[in-house]
Structures are given as structure tokens and as C-alpha cells.
């Protein structure tokens, strides 16, 4: 992944977040506090502005900048989690070029900070299978991104029957069952954006 692709990815996320902010907020209103879309829109709008102003020669720089901006602009649960994820990814890409390893670093960062396991009804339920699917297909970046996006979407839908154990939705106990997790939904959106910008001939 080069800086151009990284920027395209982040731009794709930002525009998808803007388009679907209301949906994310509505999902969050059902089992949380109704601000997930607002939070991410505020965050990614700030990221777009920050990247316009910043020198980011490499993909790692783009993603670190994205992460630090999210941490300092979003707040809530998703700010530190997505912020750490992008920062970890960027730092990993500064070390070695493997997107698969970068995604693994992101998952690790999210789990270290948030302590959620798969099945807790959080973004991890979309992130973990997406990272796994990407790694399994990582010899072809486009195919890997598509597989990750599909796995994230599956993981997102699989949150519906779960009872939340982490995040605000956990306060609802059994009433959290039957609702799709907003964070898993935004994670699926992030991987859909990755698949969209990773053409068959994009570099890994």
C-alpha cells in the first residue's frame, strides 16, 4: 500500500461515513447513545482536513496521521479504538510493507485497549474475521480486500443475535439482542472502502 492508496482509502471511508452517518447513529440510538455516526463524521472530516495540511510521503504516515487525528477528535469509545487501530496500522507499515500484518496490528491494538473478544457484540466481531480473511488471501491485494470486506459484513450481521458484553450496549443486557452493532457496522464500511479502492492492479 502506498500513500496514494492509503489516502484514497481514508477518503473513501470519510465519504462513506458522511453518507451513512444517520444510519450509524440510528443503530447506536437503539442500543447505545445515538452518536456513533456523529462521532465518526466529526472524526473523519477532521482527518480529511488534517491530511490536506500534512506531508505524508508514505502510507504509514497517512494512517498514523489518521489515527492520531481520530484519537484527538472523536472521543467516546470509537475514537480511541479506531484511532489506535489506524495508528498501529501506520506504525506497522512503517516497519514492513505487509498490509496483512498491519491489519493484525490494528486488531491487536483494538483488543488491547478495549478488551473485547469476538462474540462480545463490538467492532471486533467485524474486525477479527476481516483481518483473518485478508491474511488468508493476502497474496492478491484486491482479492484480499474483497474477502475482508465480505467477512466484515458477515461479522457485522452476525452481531444481531448476540447479547452485548462490552460497550454501552452491554447495559441493556438481553435487550441488546436483535440489534446490529454500530461499531461493527462502521468497521464493515471501512473494509468496503478498502475493497473499493484496492483495484485488481493496486499494489499490496
Amino acid at each position: 500500500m502506498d500513500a496514494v492508496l492509503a489516502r484514497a482509502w481514508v477518503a473513501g471511508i470519510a465519504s462513506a461515513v458522511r453518507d451513512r452517518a444517520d444510519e450509524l447513529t440510528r443503530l447506536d440510538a437503539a442500543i447505545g447513545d445515538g452518536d456513533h455516526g456523529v462521532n465518526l463524521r466529526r472524526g473523519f472530516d477532521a482527518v480529511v482536513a488534517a491530511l490536506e495540511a500534512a506531508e505524508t510521503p508514505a502510507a504509514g504516515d497517512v494512517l498514523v496521521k489518521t489515527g492520531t487525528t481520530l484519537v484527538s477528535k472523536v472521543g467516546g469509545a470509537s475514537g480511541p479504538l479506531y484511532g489506535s487501530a489506524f495508528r498501529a496500522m501506520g506504525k506497522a507499515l512503517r516497519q514492513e510493507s505487509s498490509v496483512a500484518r498491519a491489519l493484525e496490528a490494528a486488531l491487536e491494538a483494538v483488543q488491547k485497549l478495549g478488551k473485547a473478544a469476538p462474540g462480545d457484540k463490538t467492532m471486533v466481531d467485524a474486525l477479527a474475521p476481516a483481518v483473518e480473511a485478508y491474511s488468508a488471501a493476502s497474496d492478491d491485494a484486491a482479492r484480499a480486500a474483497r474477502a475482508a470486506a465480505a467477512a466484515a459484513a458477515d461479522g457485522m450481521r452476525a452481531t444481531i443475535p448476540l447479547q452485548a458484553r462490552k460497550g454501552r450496549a452491554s447495559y441493556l443486557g438481553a435487550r441488546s439482542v436483535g440489534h446490529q452493532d454500530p461499531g461493527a457496522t462502521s468497521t464493515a464500511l471501512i473494509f468496503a472502502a478498502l475493497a473499493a479502492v484496492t483495484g485488481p492492479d493496486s499494489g499490496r
Partner: protein
Amino acid sequence: MKKFVNDPADVVREALAGVAAAHPDLRVDLAEQFVVRADAPRTGKVGLVSGGGSGHEPLHAGFVGPGMLDAACPGEVFTSPVPDQILAATKAVDGGAGVVHVVKNYTGDVMNFQLAAELAADEGIRIETVLVDDDVAVEDSTWTAGRRGTGATLLVEKIAGALAEEGAPLADVAAVGRRVNELSASFAVALTACTTPAAGRPGFELPDDEIEVGVGIHGEPGRSRQKLRPAKEIAALVTEPILTAEPIASGEPVIVLVNGLGATPLMELYVMFGEIARLLDAAGVRIARSLVGDYVTSLDMAGMSLTVCRVDDELLRLWDAPVRTPGLRWGM
């Protein structure tokens, strides 16, 4: 949505500008978005910083002042503050004796304060974190996010603030805060949903004859939806889980907070206080001090929460100590 706002995206910043205009004895940093005592930092005094999403006013900015918080960091509405904010506030109050972070137990607050504490530690500031998790509507479990922090936050901030004001060391201020949290239990019911300025519509729909039982302070639905009933029965609904969770000895003194969630008239809060006092009395609990009013709110939600905190003479002494903040004031 009918609110006194300009652009909903600016509501927190504009409210802070109002706080700055109304309270000359507070300093408001509009760029970093925090509120701090005008005389901060005070050399040798442990700093007390709290923060969380906005929409719970007067918590937390309304509790900044002598005898309570040194600074507060209001996040966006119902969204925890960001680490930069918390770090800036922490640095603004650090007088060399360390800083206590009072954090309500929400994933977002916990993580953002944690990141800030790491950054502050990097700058050589000693940080102790007091986690508030008093809401017994939520089961306590290591498998989940645990209980929420609600009404007890006020008590933690008041009592730890009084001890810090006396010049106690960092460990003691943190310890008394943790102790207050451990001795406290809360439970809330909502009659209506609230509307965030950004969303512009109520968070949930509640039929005219139903209430949400076991709600938090972020407009979220509660643990269960039940039929509307007379004040007497709602009082039992909020009091019983607290008496179950908190083993109160007969005759033991407590501080009672009957708190409005934002849109409930004070008259109704007093009706509830009367009913709750009767129930506590019947259970042998002695109300040593009480507060009735809007202290830890959820925007324009109609509803109330009950917080009961077991106390001893030392905690009562600290509770009674002078405090001078926009939201809580006595003795000065």
C-alpha cells in the same frame, strides 16, 4: 427539535462560552475545551479532574471550584472527552502533588482517560484514577463493561475534593474517592427519552403508559420497559435494588441524592423524595444528609435517579466541608 442552539455542532463550545461569561471565578479554555478554577494550579495541592460527555450539566463543569473539582473536560454531547483535552486540563491543575482523575465507568471515558494518563505520566505528572461505577441496574461482572458511573460521581467529586482542599496527599484523595464509590449505589428510571442536538429526535419511542427502568444518563433505553405507575411504586422500584445491592446496617447513616434527569419538575422530585424517605426509614436506614434536584442529568429526559451512599463521621465531615461551585455551594 426545539432547543436553544445555533448550529448543533457548536453547542458544547457555545455553552462553555456562556459558562465563561457567567462565572468569572472559573477560567474556560475554549480552544482545548476545559474549565478550570481561576487560581489553578495550586502548588502542593492534589489536582482533581473529571470529565465526560456533555449533556449531564451541572456535572462536571458545574462542580469546578474550591472544595470540589480543579478542572473539568466536557466532551461532545454524550461523548467522552479526548485525551488531548484531558491532558491539557491535567497540566493546568498540576501543582506538583499529582492529579486524580475521576472517571465514570464507560468504555469511552475509561479509554480516553487512560490514554491521557499515559501522556501525563510521560510528562512526569503522577496520576491516580478513581473509577465510578455505582449503577446497580447493571450487573457487575468481569465479563462485561461492568456497572455504569452515574449519581455517585457527585459524591466522589465533593468528598475527594474536600480532602484535596485540605492538602491531603494523592494516595489519600484517590482512596477516599474509591471508598465513596464503593459505598454508593444508584438506580434510575425514565419517563421520556431525551433528544441530543445532533440527532434532533428522541433516542427512543416510549408509549404514554410505559417507563424505562434501569436507565443510564445517555438517553439509552433501560434494562426493562414497564407500565407507568404511581410515584409510590416507582419509589419502590428504584429503592429496592439499591437496598439489595448495598448491605446497609440498621441505623447506618447515608447521604441520599434524589436527582432529576433534566425535564422533571422539582415538585415531582420532592414527591419521590418523600416516598423514598419513607421506604428507607422502614428499612432502618438513617438519612444523614440529602440533596434533591438536577445534578447529573441526561439533557431533557424526564426521569429521576436515586443514589444512596453509606457514610461515617469522616465522610460526613468532608461532605459538609465548604464548597463553592456553580452547581453545589455551601459554607462559602
